[in-house]
C-alpha cells in the first residue's frame, strides 16, 4: 500500500526514476495523492452505487455556476428581479450560467433522492451506517432549503409567493419560526438574509456534512451488495470480493461528471431558466417549483398547517427508519414490510404531486 510516507526522496545518484516520475513522486510526497488508491469492493463501481458521487458533482457544478451568478446578482428588493434580467440579457453567457445553475439544482435534488432510494433498496442504512443515513437526511433537508431560497432570490411573483407561504408557516410555528419572520431583523430586507443563507450558510453546512458523510463512508467501508455471497460479517463486503483502487471509482465519476455537465449545458441552452413579473403582495397566481407540489396539495385540502405536518411526517419517517428497521436482511425483495411502507409513501407523494400539476394556482393566504 502506498499510503505510508516515504521518508525521503532526496537526490540519490542511483535513482533510476525518470524526471517526470520523480516530479510526480515529489508532489505525492507532499500531497499524499496516492493514498486515495485504497481498495474498494468492485461492486462500488456499478452505476447505482455512484449516485452519491453524481450528487456531489452536481453540487460542485452549482458552486461553480453560483460563483459566476453572484458577481452580477443584486440582493436588494428594488433591483433583484432586474439584476436577474440583466444576467439573462446583458451579461455575456449569463443566461447559460444561470441555466446550468437552475438545472444543476434539480439534478442535485433528483440525484440525492435516487441515491437515498439506492441506500434504501440495498439496506445500506443498517448497522453500523445509521449515523451516516441521518447526515444524509439532514443534507436532503438542506438541499430543499437551498431550492426554496434560490426560488425566492429571483424576486419574481413566484419567489415572493413562496416566501409568503414560508413567513406564514414561520408564524404558525410561533417562536420556533423566528428566523422566517420579517421582523426578526426588521431594518433590513428578508431577501438579504435569505441571500446570505443561500450563498454561505446552506452550502457551508452541506459542505461540512458532506465531508463527514464521506469520511464515514471511508470508515465504515462501502456496504456489501446484498446479492453477493456474504462474508464473515454481514456488515461488510465478503473478504473474497475483488477490489479496485478508489482512484478507479473517481475516474468513473469524472466520466459521469463530464456527461452530466454536458447534459446540463444542453438543457441550459434549450430550456433557459424563467423569470417572472416583479412581485406584488396579496395575490396568488403562481405555483411553486415541482419539488414543493406535494405539500401544496395538502395545503389545498387542509390549510397551511398541513404543509408543516406533511413535511414533519416525511422527515420523521426518514429519520427513524434505521432505528425501527433493524433486521439483518438487506436485499429489498426480502424486506416486504419496509418495501410496503415505502411504496405507500412513494405513491402518496406521487399522487399529491400529480394533483398539484393539474390544479390551477389558488389563493390561500
Amino acid at each position: 500500500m502506498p499510503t505510508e510516507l516515504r521518508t525521503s526522496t532526496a537526490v540519490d545518484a542511483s535513482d533510476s526514476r525518470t524526471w517526470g516520475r520523480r516530479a510526480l513522486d515529489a508532489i505525492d510526497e507532499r500531497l499524499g495523492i496516492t493514498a486515495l488508491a485504497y481498495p474498494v469492493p468492485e461492486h462500488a463501481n456499478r452505476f447505482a452505487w455512484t449516485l452519491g458521487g453524481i450528487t456531489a458533482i452536481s453540487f460542485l457544478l452549482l458552486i461553480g455556476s453560483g460563483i459566476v451568478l453572484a458577481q452580477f446578482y443584486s440582493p436588494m428588493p428594488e433591483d433583484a428581479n432586474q439584476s436577474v434580467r440583466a444576467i439573462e440579457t446583458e451579461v455575456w453567457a449569463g443566461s447559460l450560467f444561470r441555466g446550468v445553475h437552475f438545472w444543476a439544482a434539480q439534478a442535485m435534488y433528483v440525484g440525492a433522492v435516487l441515491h437515498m432510494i439506492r441506500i434504501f433498496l440495498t439496506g445500506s442504512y443498517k448497522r453500523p451506517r445509521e449515523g451516516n443515513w441521518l447526515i444524509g437526511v439532514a443534507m436532503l433537508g438542506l438541499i430543499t432549503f437551498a431550492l426554496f431560497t434560490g426560488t425566492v432570490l429571483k424576486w419574481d411573483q413566484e419567489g415572493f409567493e413562496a416566501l409568503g407561504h414560508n413567513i406564514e408557516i414561520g408564524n404558525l410555528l410561533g417562536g420556533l419560526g423566528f428566523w422566517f419572520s420579517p421582523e426578526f431583523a426588521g431594518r433590513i430586507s428578508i431577501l438579504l438574509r435569505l441571500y446570505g443563507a443561500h450563498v454561505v450558510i446552506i452550502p457551508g453546512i452541506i459542505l461540512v456534512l458532506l465531508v463527514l458523510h464521506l469520511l464515514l463512508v471511508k470508515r465504515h467501508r462501502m456496504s456489501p451488495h446484498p446479492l453477493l455471497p456474504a462474508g464473515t460479517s454481514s456488515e461488510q463486503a465478503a473478504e473474497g470480493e475483488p477490489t479496485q483502487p478508489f482512484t478507479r471509482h473517481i475516474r468513473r465519476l469524472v466520466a459521469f461528471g463530464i456527461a452530466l455537465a454536458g447534459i446540463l449545458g444542453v438543457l441550459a441552452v434549450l430550456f433557459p431558466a424563467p423569470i417572472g413579473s416583479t412581485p406584488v403582495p396579496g395575490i396568488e397566481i403562481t405555483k411553486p417549483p415541482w419539488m414543493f407540489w406535494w405539500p401544496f396539495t395538502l395545503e389545498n385540502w387542509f390549510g397551511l398547517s398541513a404543509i408543516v405536518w406533511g413535511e414533519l411526517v416525511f422527515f420523521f419517517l426518514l429519520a427513524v427508519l434505521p432505528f425501527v428497521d433493524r433486521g439483518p436482511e438487506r436485499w429489498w425483495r426480502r424486506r416486504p414490510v419496509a418495501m410496503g411502507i415505502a411504496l405507500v409513501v412513494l405513491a402518496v407523494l406521487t399522487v399529491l404531486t400529480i394533483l398539484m400539476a393539474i390544479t390551477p394556482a389558488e389563493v390561500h393566504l
Partner: protein
Amino acid sequence: MAAAAIGTLMVLGSLTIASPARADGGQSADEGYVMVLQALSFLVNDPGPDGTAQALAMVGDALEAEGHDGVDVLMLEQAAASLRAGSTEEAQTLLQGSISEAVDSLEPAVGDETGTTVMLAPLPPRGALSVTDWVFLGLSVLAAAVGIVLAVLFRPTESLRELGHDISAARDRATVASTGKEA
C-alpha cells in the same frame, strides 16, 4: 417551503427561541398603490380576457379603497376605461403612471416589502440562438457524448454473477488452505 423551515429547524434546532413573529409587514395589500400593482400583475401575467377582467376588478377595488395616497384617481379611471375598451397596453401605461407619486416616495424596502416600483412582465422566452449559444450547445453535446463513452469504457468489468463466483472461489481456496494447514 415547509421542508425549508423544517430543514433549518432540524439543523439549527438547538437555537434559542426568540419572540413570536408578528404577522403584519410594512406593506399592506389593501393600500391603493399596491392594489394598482396587483391589477398590473394580473395584466402582465395574463393579457387575455381573464387577466383583463381580474385587473378591472382590482382597479375597481382601488378606486373604492379609502386611502388614495400618491395615486392619481383620474388616471386610474382612464385606465379602467381603457381596460373596458380592451386596450391593454394603454391601460398598463396609465396604471403605472397613476402610482408614480406613491412609488417615488417609497423608502428602501425592509422586512418582507417587495420594493416593486415598476411592473415588469415575465421575461419572454429568448429568441433564436446566438453564436455563443450554438458554440455552448455544441460543446455540451460533445461533453455529454465523451462523458458517456468514457463512463461505458470505465464500467465494471465483471457482472454480479461473476463477482459472486469470484467470492465463492476465494472462500473455497481459503477453506482448502486452512484445512490443509490443520491436516
